[in-house]
């Protein structure tokens, strides 16, 4: 009886943790990032500076970790000529108070950051963002260098391939990959199809 109960207990706990782990490492939809900075964007195109943009769902619990990691990332790039934006996506029918969350307040506290309210995710859509925590790095000439997430998994802080690659791209101009998995809630932004790549023909 006791052994049976113990086995059931162990199996239930094991299943529970497996479910939690699977949830934690399930990535969101990757961005369809345009290769060049979208000209129609309200955000000024990069001019002689690297441009780092993060899309954020203000109510998503994972945003807290994304903002923490953004803060860490920008601290590493403090002297590297990087201009950073956070796009806070808000449906038009929701009041502004809906965006006054701890994540957004933490983002506003990051030195030198530009927090932009993105009503209905228009800007996020131009960048092809589907998931909160999506980060883009554009070169000083407006070319896409990186698109991906900077948290190790869903809602978790810590070292991540995304952070490592962005730092490497800015510091050395190269990285082992130009993307990474992104973890967060769906933004619900209407994604504009990315422009086709110029083939030169």
């Amino acid at each position, binding site marked *: 009886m006791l052994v049976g109960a113990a086995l059931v207990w162990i199996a239930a706990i094991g299943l529970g943790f497996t479910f*939690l782990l699977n949830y934690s490492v399930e990535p969101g939809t990757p961005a369809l990032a345009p290769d060049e900075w979208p000209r129609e964007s309200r955000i000024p195109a990069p001019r002689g500076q690297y441009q780092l943009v993060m899309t954020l769902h203000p109510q998503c619990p994972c945003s807290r970790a994304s903002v923490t990691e953004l803060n860490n990332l920008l601290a590493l790039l403090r002297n590297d000529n990087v201009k950073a934006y956070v796009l806070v996506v808000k449906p038009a029918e929701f009041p502004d108070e809906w965006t006054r969350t701890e994540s957004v307040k933490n983002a506003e506290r990051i030195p030198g950051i530009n927090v932009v309210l993105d009503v209905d995710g228009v800007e996020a859509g131009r960048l092809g963002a589907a998931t909160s925590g999506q980060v883009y790095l554009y070169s000083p000439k407006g070319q896409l260098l990186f698109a991906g997430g900077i948290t190790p*998994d869903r809602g978790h802080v810590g070292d991540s391939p995304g952070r490592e690659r962005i730092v490497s791209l800015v510091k050395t101009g190269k990285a082992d990959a130009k993307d990474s998995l992104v973890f967060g809630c*769906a933004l*619900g932004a209407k994604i504009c199809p990315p422009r086709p790549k110029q083939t030169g023909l």
Partner: protein
Amino acid sequence: MEDVSTLAADPGRVESLYREQVNARRVRADRMFAVLMVAQWLFAILLATLVSPYAWAGKTREFHPHLFAAVFMGAGLALFPVLLAVYKPGQAVTRHVMVASQMLWSALFIHLTGGRIETHFHVFGSLAFVAFYCDWTVLVTGTVVVAADHLVRGLLYPESVYGITNPEWWRFLEHAGWVTFEDVVLVWICITGLNEMRGLALRQAEVESLKESEEAKSAALEMVLKELQPSLAAGAQA
């Protein structure tokens, strides 16, 4: 005259008193942990409610899986050990399950707080509580659960436990090593605690033995006095 210091306590009585004390302590520890299990369950629900109540998809929201984990996994983690504490207090199986569960609570809290490094302190705090059992074997159970959790997650999902994607395979040994570092002191505390309890049992048995000896002496003296009383009365009359 008999020297008190040389009074020999009954070894059977010493062992019985010692077991009584150890069992009472472990039953108390079981009760403490049972209360802690329920408290942690409530705290986990509160934590999930405050930290991650909803998962969002654009405008729509639904209850976050962490909330379900806190309610149902928390119930699972708490229920079995609490039942054991109620129906099998003081038994070895109860404290081993209790300790395993306590270590798994650490893993759940680490999850619910998004891998915050501060939450890892729960592991070390819990081990200190575990020492209250005065049973070094449960520290081994706790350490094995922590090491196994780190090993399995480190192999399958390294980011979830170490915060990096490509840790060395032996990284779990580093974590287990720090736990063992604390264990060394706690094992010593457990053994010292048991020795002290044995010493107390020995002294109590000696006191009981002395009391019995004194009562026997008093009874013998009383009997002698009773026997002498007629002679003394006759002598007084003469």
